[in-house]
């Protein structure tokens, strides 16, 4: 049964592609929340478009997607988080950015607005910022507890964010995150931007997932304007996406082991990562492949030399990687740190709709690649485990590396001939598009509305991290402080993608 069959709606908004968007009243909004609480669907996104609130839903069998929209007549809407906690941070962000208020929200604290902006609700009715109230962390009570504040500036070469640990001896009793430090106002800059500028902004939402964001943004524009992209461009996009996945998974596998003081894996995986980035540069002109995908196609064609480079990369990875996997698997002192550390409960992953290796290591097999071309004509497995610990998240990455290698082989083998770009179709009136792309850490969502002139009116970007960060707070509970870097790296959530 389709999701919208259970939701009373007034009208279907057109044109919104490829999935339907409907206007609902209080009744339909409540029914949508009912579906979430019953586990019949997960929250795919919740964002403001003042005076509207949009909620994207993904059916639990991953076969249906729909967007329901509620008009906030007095600047407020019934809170989703009051009954479905995964919406909590999204509602707080929406209040900060759009000034839209969730009625009966369980948490009225700010989230992205840390009190340093000169404007209030920058994406809604702008006002002068008021003097910020001191941020209250959640209370923790008990004898012998102490707090460890960490960040926003951390000890490594990583992004900024604040972690507030409450500990009993070595054991973490509660972790509370405070993020928002790298909020750049990307969605504000998107408003009115040309497609060219907007694509560049999307590509810089989270640098490690630049290909995935460009892919999703381009797909959203193309589906909105009904522009058909040449098949060769679609294949090249997937090739870039798999190279990006390989590079990041190599980096992560090495870095997780390094956080257990097993530096040789970092050194060895770092070599594979560097070789992957060099292959990407040889094929597409940029190590991270930034701006290599744009609406209408791709910027660089793959040459015969590029294909030879890719074959050499595959040969080298297949020679080296299995030995590193064996090294990981046979080092008991390392396994002692990763096995049973930082367990994420399968129930949480299902409730939160958590994507990527965090979800797949705890039994949720969603992979957005099942939804778009060219993956429908490629063969690959989505590895899933149930154990949900740091070790499981490493193994999911290992299996995904193997899948990416076969995907690259298939793509190069079946690469269609022809053009790599097509102009975006001009549109007569405003239209909306939405797309998902599977980044290395999970699904990213891009939703946009183009104006009749072809500029972006509103664009929302939702990183996979939104539904992963909160589960890191649960994973560390009862673990020792020294295992936090290990847990954190096994998640490797994006700060920039989350803070937008």
């Amino acid at each position, binding site marked *: 049964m389709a999701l919208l069959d259970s939701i009373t709606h007034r009208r279907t908004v057109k044109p919104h592609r490829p999935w339907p968007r409907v206007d609902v009243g209080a009744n339909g909004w409540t029914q949508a929340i009912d579906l979430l609480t019953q586990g019949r669907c997960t929250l795919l996104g919740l964002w403001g478009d003042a005076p509207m609130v949009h909620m994207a839903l993904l059916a639990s069998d991953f076969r249906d997607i729909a967007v329901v929209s509620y008009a906030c007549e007095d600047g407020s809407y019934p809170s989703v988080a009051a009954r479905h906690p995964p919406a909590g941070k999204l509602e707080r962000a929406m209040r900060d950015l759009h000034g839209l208020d969730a009625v009966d929200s369980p948490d009225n604290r700010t989230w992205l607005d840390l009190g340093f902006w000169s404007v209030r609700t920058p994406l809604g009715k702008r006002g002068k910022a008021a003097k910020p109230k001191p941020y209250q962390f959640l209370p923790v009570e008990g004898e012998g507890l102490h707090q460890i504040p960490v960040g*926003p500036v951390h000890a490594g070469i990583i992004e900024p964010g604040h972690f507030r640990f409450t500990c009993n001896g070595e054991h973490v009793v509660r972790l509370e995150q405070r993020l928002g430090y*790298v*909020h750049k106002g990307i969605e504000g800059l998107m408003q009115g931007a040309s497609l060219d500028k907007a694509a560049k902004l999307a590509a*810089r*939402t989270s640098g490690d997932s630049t290909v995935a964001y460009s892919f999703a943004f381009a797909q959203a524009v193309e589906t909105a304007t009904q522009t058909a992209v040449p098949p060769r461009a679609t294949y090249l996009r997937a090739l870039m996406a798999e190279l990006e996945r390989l590079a990041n998974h190599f980096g992560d596998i090495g870095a997780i082991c390094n956080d257990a003081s097993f530096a040789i894996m970092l*050194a060895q995986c770092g070599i594979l990562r560097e070789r992957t980035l060099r292959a990407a540069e040889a094929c597409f002109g940029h*190590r*991270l492949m930034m701006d290599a995908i744009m609406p209408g196609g791709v910027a660089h064609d793959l040459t015969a030399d590029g294909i030879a480079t890719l074959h050499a990369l595959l040969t080298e990875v297949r020679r080296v990687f299995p030995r590193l996997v064996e090294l990981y698997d046979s080092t008991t002192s390392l396994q002692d740190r990763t096995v049973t550390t930082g367990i994420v409960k399968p129930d949480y992953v299902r409730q939160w709709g958590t994507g990527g290796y965090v979800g797949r290591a705890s039994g949720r097999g969603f992979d957005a690649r099942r939804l778009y071309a060219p993956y429908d004509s490629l063969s690959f497995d989505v590895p899933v485990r149930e154990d949900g610990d740091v070790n499981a998240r490493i193994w999911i990455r290992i299996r995904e590396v193997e899948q990416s290698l076969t995907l690259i082989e298939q793509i190069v083998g079946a690469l269609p001939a022809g053009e790599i770009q097509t102009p975006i179709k001009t549109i007569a009136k405003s239209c909306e598009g939405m797309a998902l792309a599977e980044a290395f850490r999970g699904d990213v969502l891009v939703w946009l509305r183009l104006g009749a002139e072809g500029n972006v009116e509103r664009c929302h970007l939702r990183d996979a991290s939104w539904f992963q960060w909160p589960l890191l707070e649960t994973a560390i509970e009862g673990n020792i402080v020294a295992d936090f870097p290990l847990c954190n790296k096994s998640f490797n959530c994006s700060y920039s993608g989350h803070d937008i």
Partner: protein
Amino acid sequence: MRRSLLDSLHGPLTEPAPAPDAAGLAELAKAVNRAARARLGRSLSIRQVDAGSCNGCELEIHALNNAFYDLERLGLRFVASPRHADVLMVTGPVTKNMREALQRTYHATPDPKWVVAVGACAADGSIFAGSYAVEGGVKDVVPVDLHIPGCPPNPRQLLAGLLALLQKVA
């Protein structure tokens, strides 16, 4: 067992370092202090601060530690605290939310110190300039001695910039 797993996986990988960046040398010519040079010798400790980057620059800064670039052979190393650092390597357009943290990190770094602004955003905010949430380039918040351009700069560009710094100050 472990030995046989990794034996002869790779030959030597470390590559010759690039020449110091000429533009960087010119920018630094102003900032050199002879006394500081004597004190530091040929080594610099670097503290990296992400003041709002998309994390692309961080990926390439990380790469400086891999076997191909091997930053430490040149006397450069990353340290965990600004209190241990000679150089702050700052990325990103400085967001309003990070302005204070960056200033506090700068003041926590002992003199003599240098600030290297890495990437297009760190120069002037780049594509994020003009946002309600962005302060601008790093120089709008703390004094900058050297800019390394690029989006993101690749590891060779980063090395060339750092070598210019090493040549001038250490």
